[in-house]
Each structure stands twice: as structure tokens, then as C-alpha cells.
């Protein structure tokens, strides 16, 4: 399954602009693995005629900024649960829109969110079929699509 960079860039830009009023610009920087700072990743599994996963990785700083906007709160007021909720919903919107590009009948899971330093997320039998880096508020954002083969 080939994913068009234009489609994914448009989906990502629409979500971050419409929901948060933030600009997410596609960039040619391989963010993943570059930073040893704390980061978060949201994951949605896709099952059905196409199987795989969609992940959304971002820095802790960007996750905090997005959460503060989402909840209309000062960054120092937000909780870890609100940060996870925000990233989970942003991942859900991303995967839900990507699902519309998939063939046949597919279902998406509820989101899961992990955070830490220098970690890797994989799905058994999955390979990266699309990856695009973005920059938002000067912070890294990475969309990855893994296809189960």
C-alpha cells in the first residue's frame, strides 16, 4: 500500500490547524532517534482488509503545548493524564483520517500512549511503509505508518 505524502501532510496540517490553531509543516529532518530528551508516542492499530498501525511521535514540549491549547490552560496547570488524552486524540484523528485512504473494510483501535527516553515502538511483523517528519512550534513531530506483512 502506497501512501501519498501530499495526503498525509494535508491530513496532519488540517488536524493541527483546525483543532489547535498550530501550524505543522513537513520537513526533511529524521526526528526519530535524534533526540535523547523525553518524548511521547501515540499508537492506533488498524485491522481488517489492511493491517498495521499509525503512530504519532512528538517531543514532550510539543505535547505539553498542544495540551495547554486543547484544555485552554497554562502549561504549568496540565496533568500527565491530560497530556496523554490529548496525544491519544490527535493520534486517533490522524489514524481515522488515514483509514479513509485504505482499501476495503478496516477498523481502528482505541489509542494507546507511551512516553520515555530513547525507546522504540514496533508491531510484530510490521514494517515502516511511510514516515514523515513535521515541525510545529519549533518542536519535532513524526507520523509513521507501519504495515503488517
Amino acid at each position, binding site marked *: 500500500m502506497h501512501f501519498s505524502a501530499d495526503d498525509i501532510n494535508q491530513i496532519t496540517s488540517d488536524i493541527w490547524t*483546525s483543532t489547535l490553531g498550530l501550524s505543522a509543516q513537513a520537513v526533511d529532518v529524521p526526528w526519530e532517534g535524534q533526540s535523547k530528551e523525553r518524548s511521547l508516542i501515540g499508537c492506533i492499530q488498524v485491522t481488517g482488509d489492511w493491517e498495521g498501525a499509525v503512530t504519532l511521535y512528538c517531543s514532550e514540549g510539543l505535547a505539553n503545548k498542544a495540551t495547554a491549547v*486543547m*484544555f485552554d490552560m497554562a502549561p504549568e496547570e496540565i496533568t500527565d493524564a491530560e497530556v496523554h488524552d490529548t496525544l491519544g486524540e490527535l493520534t486517533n484523528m490522524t489514524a*481515522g483520517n488515514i483509514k479513509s485512504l485504505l482499501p476495503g473494510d478496516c477498523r*481502528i483501535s482505541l489509542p494507546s500512549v507511551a512516553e520515555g527516553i530513547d525507546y522504540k515502538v514496533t508491531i510484530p511483523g510490521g514494517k515502516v511503509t511511510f514516515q514523515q517528519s513535521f515541525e510545529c512550534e519549533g518542536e519535532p513531530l513524526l507520523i509513521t505508518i507501519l504495515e503488517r506483512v
Partner: protein
Amino acid sequence: MKILIVDDSKAMRMIVSRTLRQAGFGDHECKEASDGVEGMALVREWSPDLVISDWNMPNMNGLEFLQAIKADGLSTPFGFVTTEGSPQMRQASEEAGSLFLITKPFTADSFKTHLGSILNG
């Protein structure tokens, strides 16, 4: 009017509430629930005039929630705000009695278009 917002994401419930205000529907009374089970309890207790529900939720998803409302013999106006708007989901939602399906991300204009006749009528 009384509006019930049902979504497992607190962040999304806040965005829906904010968008309702931006669309000019800020004067209506709103309550929130985090899944279909909580939503069904509030439908029975509070009798909302409109339910705005997510589709993909734990415990009882949005379609099951709508079907439970109909099974109770209620005609509460109901619409989906969800990430997925495939033709199959639109058909299933219409067949179950949903009045609209708004896909995320959404704008205040899309709320005006879909909710105007219900909330202004």
C-alpha cells in the same frame, strides 16, 4: 436546549464544547459522558434535546449507544462527531437513525451547518 456530549476523550469533549460556543450555540446547557454506558444513563435521567457522540469508545461504542436509545423507545435527536466518515459508517449511522455525521477535525461552520436546524428550530 439540553445537549449531551459523549466522547471518551476529555480533550475532545472540551473541543466540542468550545466549537459549540464558536458556532453560536453557547447558550445551551451541556452535560458530558465518557462512553455509551454513561451516556445512556444521562439520556434516561436528564432527557437531552440533542446527543452529540463519538463513535469509537470503550464499553459501549457510539452506534451501540444510538441503538440502545432507540431500543428504549426514545426519539432523542442524535448525531456523530467522529474521526471516521467512510461510506459504510455513514450508511450504518443513517440506518440507525443518526441525523448527521461530522468528521474530525471539524470547524464551527460545520457545526452551524449540521446543528443549526436542530438547535435553532
